[in-house]
């Protein structure tokens, strides 16, 4: 019997396990299906990680290393090559590993499974089905961990960060990246990646464009790209043909929650992650969730912060601090697409409440407004907001406790 089982040994699981340990939990196990810890960071060999957390620019493996090293001198047990098949509300964990089937029991569970990439099937691109169409992250793993190039003439659909990073990486390795094509009128990636990965190498970014045809029999031979109207429908007559052997898809990430759903944990259709309270607890008391399994983050630093909070909360639960009872829901206001947490325990003892959310359009000078049925509770000015940049506000919890529900909204700061 463990006190805590952490499912997933990526950045979220590592941070949750470490902070639970430093908060007094000694019998912890991390269950990781890969042959090593670190998760997606192992293939993210580019730099830019850790600016917030460690005040220096690290590569992904270096960032993972920091946490793996911190765990080395602890009693935290790690089971590699271990696939979790099922979890139950009673906190039984069914696993498969090279030596066979095993059932683990724990007082508390942290769900830190991360996310997966959206695939061609999820976005329905017309055309044939040749080889040469990859998700950007799959191509990244092939190149950075296995030394295999996806192809030599590349078009990238979607301007998410992984796609942008791969545009630079493939160019440096000798491939020709012909274009990065984005359906929306703005990029889904960080501005610094547009500059460092596309502008640096003169790779054109086509905003409000999409791939309308995929050609090729065995291997991809080309794609057609067209401009789209404001309803995101291709405009006839705007087609451009690219001769390419590779199409990378960087069209979004989906939190991985098969285990969560099967356990009957309440899910949020806006995030595709579990509904969580302010302490990252799910609808099953003692089961916590964090990182990209809850909502897709832009920066691993924020994953670590959130997961540390989940680890602290799991430790408190194990020591006997139980919540339950009434909850106050957070609601989307104008221009806000989701919030994490989704609910606040009325009996929480936390002094501050961290709220994360995304807006649905690009704002310049703007304001975030927190309100309830009686009016405005707090507001925050922002010089800039975009859908690609997760927003974070911290509200004193006592300001929220008397509300029926709390609404987070975003607005232009035109009037005083």
């Amino acid at each position, binding site marked *: 019997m463990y006190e805590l089982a952490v499912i997933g040994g990526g950045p979220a699981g590592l941070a949750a396990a470490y902070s639970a340990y430093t908060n007094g939990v000694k019998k912890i196990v991390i269950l990781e299906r890969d042959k090593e810890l670190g998760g997606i960071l192992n293939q993210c*060999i580019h730099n830019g990680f850790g600016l917030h957390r460690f005040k220096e620019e690290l590569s992904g*493996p270096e960032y993972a*290393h920091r946490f793996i090293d911190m765990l080395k001198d602890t009693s935290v047990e790690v089971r590699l090559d271990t696939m979790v098949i099922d979890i139950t509300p009673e906190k039984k964990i069914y696993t498969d590993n090279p030596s066979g089937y095993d059932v683990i029991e724990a007082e508390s569970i942290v769900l830190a499974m991360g996310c997966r990439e959206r695939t061609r099937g999820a976005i329905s691109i017309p055309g044939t089905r040749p080889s040469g169409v990859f998700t950007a992250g799959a191509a990244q793993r092939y190149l950075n*961990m296995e030394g295999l190039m996806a192809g030599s003439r590349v078009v990238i659909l979607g301007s998410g960060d992984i796609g942008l990073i791969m545009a630079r990486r493939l160019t440096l390795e000798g491939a020709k990246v012909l274009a990065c094509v984005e359906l929306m009128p703005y990029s889904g990636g960080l501005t610094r990646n547009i500059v460092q990965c596309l502008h640096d190498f003169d790779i054109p970014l086509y905003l409000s464009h999409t791939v309308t045809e995929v050609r090729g029999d065995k291997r991809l031979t080309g794609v057609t790209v067209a401009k789209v109207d404001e309803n995101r429908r291709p405009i006839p007559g705007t087609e451009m043909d690219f001769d390419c052997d590779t199409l990378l898809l960087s069209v979004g990430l989906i939190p991985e929650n098969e285990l969560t759903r099967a356990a009957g944990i309440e899910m949020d259709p806006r995030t595709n992650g579990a509904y969580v309270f302010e302490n990252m607890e799910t609808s099953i008391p003692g089961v916590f969730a964090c990182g990209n399994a809850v909502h897709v983050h832009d920066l691993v630093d924020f994953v670590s912060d959130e997961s540390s909070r989940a680890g602290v909360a799991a430790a408190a639960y194990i020591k006997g601090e139980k919540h339950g009872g009434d909850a106050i829901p957070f609601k989307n206001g104008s221009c806000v697409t989701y919030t994490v947490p989704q609910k606040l325990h009325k009996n929480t003892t936390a002094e501050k409440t961290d709220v994360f959310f995304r807006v649905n359009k690009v704002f310049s000078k703007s304001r975030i407004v927190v309100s309830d049925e009686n009016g405005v509770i707090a507001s925050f000015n922002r010089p800039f907001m975009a859908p690609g940049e997760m927003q974070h506000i911290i509200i004193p919890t006592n300001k929220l406790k008397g509300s029926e529900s709390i609404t987070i909204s975003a607005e232009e700061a035109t009037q005083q």
Partner: protein
Amino acid sequence: MTELTCIGCPMGCRLTVDEENDYAVTGNSCKRGEIYGKNELKNPTRVLTSTVAITGGIHDRCPVRTKDAIPKGKLFDAMEIIKKTEIQSPVKCGQVIIENILDTGIDVIASRDM
């Protein structure tokens, strides 16, 4: 006059740099924008990250990076050297793999244990 997008933070300020006026930067919201704007035109540098072939490790490639930024114009030449490099496990994170690449004064280091 050259227009740039600052990469110092998520705001992405549109900078204008005047080469004929001692690289005066306008359009920035903070000091970092000014530094970036000047450096970007005088001597743009980037940290280069890649992989080298490794035998005896958990994977076939070991990630490496330049310890500091190197001139942007030398990225492709540096890649040619990195591509030809083969190493033997074990290596330690931070261990020098290629010393003083292209006489930049900057080493290429392993970015994980393997």
